[in-house]
């Protein structure tokens, strides 16, 4: 497999670049909040803000899940940024949920409870949030050391999270528009890759072994 030679960032800049990713990643949400306060989000600012937060959560989720295929297939190693991408997704999901509870539903608990129990797409969204919480809580070095191989297994939850996220998104729409179709395609590619990845890896290992014994 061809490996793209990317100019490597000197190691000493790595922490700074990760913090920059957090800062840039939070920008769309903060900017939308600013616009929303000053009436720049159109006729239904709550809906626009809520949807924007959800969409960015989904985008960061996809970017986080794209790290492995980028490394496997193109030799682009962004593993150092994966935790930030995952946590950004989590922050956006959390903000999306808080906006739903407060600005959208006005903290009317009966309406929220009814909504969660009766609406499949709300339930799927809730399931995604619940699955993200343990991942966010264990996204630190201490947890990785402490959990060992169980950490990897736990963090495979990102795949069901992506699945419920796309269903949550698609089921909230009246029709599948081109934008939603694009995200469905991205989801299919990411989940599809996950399914074929063991085969690809195995074949590659076999090739390497054959090369080594020659």
């Amino acid at each position, binding site marked *: 497999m061809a490996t793209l030679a990317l100019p490597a960032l000197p190691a000493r800049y790595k922490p700074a670049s990760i913090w920059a990713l957090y800062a840039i990643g939070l920008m769309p949400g903060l900017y939308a909040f600013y616009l929303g306060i000053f009436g720049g*989000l*159109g*006729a239904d*600012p709550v809906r626009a803000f809520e949807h924007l937060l959800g969409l960015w959560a989904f985008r960061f989720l996809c970017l986080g899940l794209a790290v492995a295929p980028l490394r496997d297939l193109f030799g682009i190693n962004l593993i150092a940024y994966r935790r930030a991408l995952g946590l950004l997704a989590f922050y956006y999901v959390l903000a999306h949920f808080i906006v739903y509870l407060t600005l959208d539903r006005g903290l*009317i608990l009966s309406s929220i409870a009814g*909504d969660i129990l009766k609406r499949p797409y709300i339930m799927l969204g809730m399931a995604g949030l619940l699955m993200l919480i343990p991942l966010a809580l264990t996204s630190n070095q201490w947890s990785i050391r402490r959990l060992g191989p169980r950490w990897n297994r736990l963090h495979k939850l990102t795949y069901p999270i992506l699945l419920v996220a796309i269903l949550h998104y698609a089921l909230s729409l009246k029709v599948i528009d081109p934008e939603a179709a694009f995200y469905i395609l991205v989801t299919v590619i990411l989940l599809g890759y996950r399914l074929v990845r063991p085969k690809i890896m195995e074949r590659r290992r076999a090739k390497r072994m054959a090369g080594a014994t020659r």
Partner: protein
Amino acid sequence: MLIRHAPDLTDNDVTDRSLYLRRREFIGGAAGLGLLGAAGQASARGLTYGPGFSTTEKPTPKKDITSYNNFYEFGVNKEDPSENAGSLKTRPWTIRVDGECETPTSFAIDDLIKANKLEERIYRMRCVEGWSMVIPWVGFPLKDLLAQVKPTSKAKFVAFETLMRPSEMPGQRWDTLQWPYREGLRLDEARHPLAILATGLYGETLPNQNGAPIRLVVPWKYGFKGIKSIVKITLTEEEPASTWNLLQPSEYGFYANVNPAVDHPRWSQATERRIGEADGLFGGARIDTLPFNGYADEVASLYDGMDLTKFY
């Protein structure tokens, strides 16, 4: 083009615009003095009715009504119609009215506007998605047009069709819906005085994104029944097909009456968010949705004996 107001219809014609926009204060004052009858009294959520069929609730700002639209012929996003509808040519424009009637007729839009008495009707509009507006339409009763073609005794329903012109309606190039957009009413619904064909908004010609040059407004039904840019009206014996019902019959019924007790399968219809009420992100609390969108006194009798959970 200006919308012609018949001189004997509303006080708005002779009222200074700024005074007119403050009319709620006067009506409120009049109600306080006991000058208005029961019709002027507040009901469930402080609804009061002025003369005719207009609500006295505060109209949604024009910029919201003209920039937040569902008109999939111009794209599926709310801002798409205001951005893309400029390409639609609304003249010349003909509406064909035919089917089960004695005198099928093709009307040129300007003749139709001249021949009918236009009225302002400030109606609530409730979208199936859970938001609402208060819209000052200008139009004329649909029943007046139907009377002109003399429906036969076989006519039981009215079918409507939107223009099909992908060159000017870019959304029609993507199969989000089955084009052209189609809608229908039962004949008695269509003859109800609340049902109008609107040709104006805020006292001016209807903007393209709101369904120019002529659209249906049935305020007790979800917004998607209000078919836009109509070119064809057909009186039929059988219940006609309607676009959203064709797409997903379990979610969008033929009747589509606003009903807080019957949820959309994927979301609740109990509450709504009034567009334009919030200043930015805060202050836009949800309000309760009313049966028949608050027009139950006028229209509920049309559905006597019908199971509205079945005929949603």
